[in-house]
C-alpha cells in the first residue's frame, strides 16, 4: 500500500509543476478540463475527462498520475466545501 506521505509528496510535486509550468499555458477555454501530471518526469496531458490518464500514459510510463481539475485543482469536494470556497 502506498503511504500517505508518498501520496502527499507526489501531490506537492505535481501541483508545483501545474502552477509553474502548466497553468501559465492554459486559457479560459481550458476551464473545467482535466489534467494528468507525472511528477517524476513533468510530462502532462489535458482532456475533457478521465481519458486524460490514458493520454498521459501514451507519452510516459507514469506510475502515479496526479489528476486535477483546472483551475480549481481539487477533483472533488466532500461534504460541501463548495467549489471555489475553499480550494
Amino acid at each position, binding site marked *: *500500500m*502506498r503511504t*500517505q506521505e508518498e*501520496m*502527499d509528496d*507526489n*501531490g506537492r510535486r505535481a*501541483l508545483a509543476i501545474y502552477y509553474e509550468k502548466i497553468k501559465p499555458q492554459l486559457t479560459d477555454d481550458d476551464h473545467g478540463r482535466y489534467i*494528468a501530471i507525472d511528477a517524476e518526469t513533468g510530462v502532462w496531458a489535458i482532456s475533457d*475527462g*478521465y*481519458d486524460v*490518464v*490514458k493520454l498521459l500514459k501514451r507519452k510516459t510510463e*507514469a506510475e*502515479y*498520475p*496526479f*489528476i*486535477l481539475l483546472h483551475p480549481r*485543482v*481539487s*477533483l*472533488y*469536494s*466532500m*461534504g*460541501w*466545501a463548495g*467549489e471555489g470556497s*475553499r*480550494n
Partner: protein
Amino acid sequence: MKIGGISGDIASLSPRVPIVVAGSNGTKKSFNALLDTGFDGVVSISREESEELGIRRLGEHRSVLADGTVRIAPIFAGRVLFVGEWRDVPITTSGDVALIGMQLIYGSRLTLDVFLDGDVDSEFVGDRRLTWDLT
C-alpha cells in the same frame, strides 16, 4: 422507483442506497451507501475496502473536505451496480462510510421521504447520465 431508504433514528437520519462495487479480481462487495449531496464526485469507499477489492488504480488526486482540510488520495477505475445497472466509474476513498456523490445521480429526479424508514425514490429525467472513459 424506490432505490433506497432513510436509515437511522431521528437524531441521525441519512438517505442510504445499496450499491455493489466489483473489483478487478472478481471480488464484489455490497454497501449501503450514504447519498451525499455535499460530495460532488461519483463514489467513495474506504481505502481498506478499495485494497480488498483490488480495483485498478488510475492515479492520485486532491479533495477538499467540509472543514477545509485538503487531502491527497488515490482514485480507482471500478464498476458499480447502481439502480440495477453496472457502470464504469471513478472511485475515490474517504472515511469508513461509502458515499454516492452528485455525479453518479446526475440526470435523476430524487424524492426523499424524510421520516423513519422512509423511501428514497429516483427516476432518470431524459438521458443525461454521465459516463466516464476509464480505459
